[in-house]
């Protein structure tokens, strides 16, 4: 019962983060600001959803379920390594190409 509550809270919070990331991607005004929600709310969302799934399949506790949980956490580790690196590469490409940053008061792009 407690497990179910933890799982549901994790999954719902993760989905809210994903929804916020998508909404931010659509609403923010320019290239650089859009990357903020795209690169990071998605990372936090993935962490929460995968954590929820790992807890969900952990019981009954066997070697197999522990291994599966660890594999899910391994996915989180790789996402946490890859996502900021990719975000940084995209932002860097934008700056190198000379794209101007949005300033307060400009229209949305």
């Amino acid at each position: 019962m407690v497990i179910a509550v933890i799982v549901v809270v994790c999954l719902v919070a993760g989905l809210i983060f994903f929804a916020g990331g998508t909404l931010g991607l659509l609403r923010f005004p320019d290239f650089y600001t859009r990357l903020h929600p795209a690169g990071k709310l998605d990372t936090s969302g993935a962490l929460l959803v995968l954590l929820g799934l790992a807890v969900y399949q952990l019981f009954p506790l066997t070697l197999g379920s522990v291994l599966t949980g660890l594999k899910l956490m391994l996915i989180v580790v790789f996402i946490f390594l890859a996502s900021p690196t990719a975000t940084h590469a995209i932002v860097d490409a934008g700056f190198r190409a000379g794209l101007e940053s949005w300033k307060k008061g400009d229209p949305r792009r």
Partner: protein
Amino acid sequence: MKKNAPEQPKLDLPPIEEGKGSASPYVATFIIMLGVWCLLSGRFDAFHLGLGVLSSALVSYFSADLLFSGPLTGRTLRMAFGFLGYLPWLLYQIMLAALHLLYLSFHPRMLELIDPQVIRFRSRLKSDVAQVTFANSITLTPGTITIYVNFHRDFSVHAIDRFSGEGLPGEMERRIARAFGEE
């Protein structure tokens, strides 16, 4: 005709140390690879473990220098544990700042709240690993993205509003310096 190449700025690069025949990087890589193998295979009979040992040995023979660039010392271990100790704080910061970004992206008058700016500062972290950790931590903390880090440890960071950027370099750099034993 050879053109005169522009003068390169003098860089105080650490001398590249060739492998001195120390076995410790190979052993450590082997153990890590075998651990990942066991985790991913989930079968513990002689056949699968044998394959794991064989392939881990091959991988560590070919690419131990990718994972550890020098012989392992007590300092490497301390850095690994320091990094583990740094992770919970990082996760807490990520969640805190993710909530801030979530608030921004759902806010009806979001355009009035954000004020993107580029922050520049010079870091005092010395080792490559510490700088990469710092850059990736900045990017993971929502509201700030590392644009680039140059050789002179100048960081450029894109912050989405004043609130997100004002903590830099500050506490995060201090904690990373402590985690990697640079204090």
